[in-house]
């Protein structure tokens, strides 16, 4: 990611080869240009993410603006079918909401939940992994025991249980405001284990290396050793894992929302849109659920492909 953010203008610090030149010549870009599936995946992923981020600008309607909805326009088919109009390109749902606009805003929410959950899981997992690997002893045993137990259950079930319990326990009033955070927490709490285990493993290896010992000898504060010296050396593989987990997190969010314990219909994510559309499937109004479904599948597939490619590209064994 660091290379990608470096723009075309060469930084004055990087002397002769220039950052842009180095980026173009890098192994990463080379392996990228050799894999057509990855290029397609990148284009699709960035198109979906871009459109979702620009939703307020590109969406033809505002799905949150209740005043603009008209029940007369409800369940209109897509524009190319009989009775469809081009003002609602992908048709409308049961409340007369434009499906295309709802998808754009919904994708934005799905991405937001997914990214927040991965970041939260990353913070939790890396912290606990560092503590377990660095301190050892009781802290290590305790954290890893919890991880072992949790790993014997599928993550999606744990997220469902946490979310389900929170859903039925919290008073209705508070619920709608904090659903987002509950959802993020539920997904994060079910995925931190993988990060923690990886970080713990590499921390235990790095801990005994000379640079750490040298830092200890000259009296650097332990917190500074861990964050400043150890962390940069163990974080790489975890960041690659995070990319793959982003797809899983989006999938989990969609599933929970589909089951009715995720985001409410007033703030629909892709999963909620599919859930709403599912009720109209039997009456033949397929577009309400199928279009969000296609976008969700494309998004997950392309993020998965990108994640797989990143993992292989950073794995020296496969070169």
């Amino acid at each position, binding site marked *: 990611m660091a290379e990608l953010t470096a723009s075309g203008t060469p930084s004055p610090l990087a002397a002769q080869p220039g950052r842009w030149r180095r980026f173009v010549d890098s192994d990463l870009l080379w392996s990228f240009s050799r894999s057509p599936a990855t290029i397609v995946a990148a284009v699709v992923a960035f198109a979906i993410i871009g459109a979702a981020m620009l939703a307020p600008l590109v969406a033809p309607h505002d799905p949150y603006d209740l005043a603009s909805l008209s029940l007369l326009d409800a369940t209109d088919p897509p524009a190319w079918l009989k009775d469809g109009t081009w003002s609602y390109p992908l048709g409308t749902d049961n409340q007369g909401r434009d499906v295309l606009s709802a998808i754009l805003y919904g994708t934005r929410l799905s991405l937001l939940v997914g990214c927040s959950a991965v970041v939260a899981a990353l913070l939790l997992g890396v912290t606990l992994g560092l503590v377990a690997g660095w301190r050892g002893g009781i802290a290590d045993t305790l954290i890893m025991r919890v991880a072992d*137990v949790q790993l*014997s*259950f*599928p993550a*999606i*079930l744990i997220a*469902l*249980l946490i979310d*389900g*319990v929170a*859903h*039925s*326990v919290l008073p209705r009033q508070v619920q709608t405001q904090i659903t987002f955070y509950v959802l993020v927490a539920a997904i994060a709490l079910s995925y931190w284990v993988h990060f923690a285990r990886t970080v713990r493993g590499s921390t235990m290896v790095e801990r005994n290396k000379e640079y750490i010992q040298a830092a200890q000898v000259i009296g650097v504060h332990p917190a500074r050793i861990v964050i400043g010296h150890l962390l940069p050396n163990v974080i790489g593989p975890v960041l690659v894992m995070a990319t793959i987990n982003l*797809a899983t997190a989006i*999938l989990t969010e*969609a*599933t929970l929302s*589909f*089951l*009715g*314990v995720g985001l409410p219909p007033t703030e629909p994510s892709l999963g909620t849109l*599919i859930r709403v559309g*599912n009720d109209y*499937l*039997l009456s*033949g109004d*397929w577009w309400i*659920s*199928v279009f969000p*479904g296609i976008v*969700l*599948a494309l998004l*997950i*597939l392309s993020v*998965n*492909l990108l994640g797989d490619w990143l993992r292989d590209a950073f794995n020296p064994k496969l070169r």
Partner: protein
Amino acid sequence: MLAFIIQRLLQAVLVMLVVALIAFALFNYIGDPIANMVGQDTSLADRERLRQELGLNDGFVVQFARFVRHAAQGNFGLSYQQARPVGQIILEKMPATLELSFMAAFLALLFGVPMGIYTGLNRHSWASQAILAISLVGVSLPTFLIGILLILIFAVTLGWLPSFGRGAIVHIGWWTTGLLTVDGWRAIILPSITLALFQMTLIMRLVRAEMIEVLHTDYIKFARARGLTSRAVNFGHALKNTLVPVITITGLQLGSIIAFAVITETVFQWPGMGLMFIQAVTFADIPVMAAYLVMVGFFFVAINLVVDLLYYVVDPRLRIEREIVAGG
């Protein structure tokens, strides 16, 4: 061997106690159990008496011990929503979930293993490439989306199969089955395919990866050098050695099939435990949720335990290593 079994058993019991503790905390400290049982006009004195009778004033350890004892007997109290014993409700729903899960596992193995062998042996044929590409799409499609698409195609558009429910069922003692009627078979096709698809791709990829790895080993090269037929090499030597991890993963996946059944059952309104749990969440039916938690925890711990022990029995290398460690 004995030490290993005892160690695994202790671990399983510990996990079950933790799960039971969570369920107990859920059951006892969330909301007021009394308020959910009595009407609004019950006096405070009556409530206090009921509280005393139910033992809600006892200490934490006493209450927890009682919860565990009752749970072990399948007694989880009354459902708030249906006012019936939760154990009875679960017993009614279990056959539907188990039937669906085993059907899905069977389908996944029936198609997953042969496809894995084929793609492993013919890595570069176009059919293998096609199967792999489709499997990648299969992994990325969420379970509920597959269900919706199948309903749209086979139930709504073509009208061949029912889109919800279990069809006609037959009672055999307390067990109910849909597999003895044509209607029941028609009803189980779409849900079991939905549930099986993800597991199928997983098993296929696993078998393929293991086959490719085994085919590169020296003993396979030696078997070829001896002039054995490729049939004997591929199936007698290679396949046999790939089966250990396949058995393990399939066993462990049985647990996740039961978990994913929640999604499939919701899509198809299949009257099993998963649908029951989702409905319990919607109605905040805490006893049902606690019972489901304990049930699922028990399933997983039992499956993990059996798989661990099976692994030990199937793979002699594990045994020898342990004995060396124990002896030395």
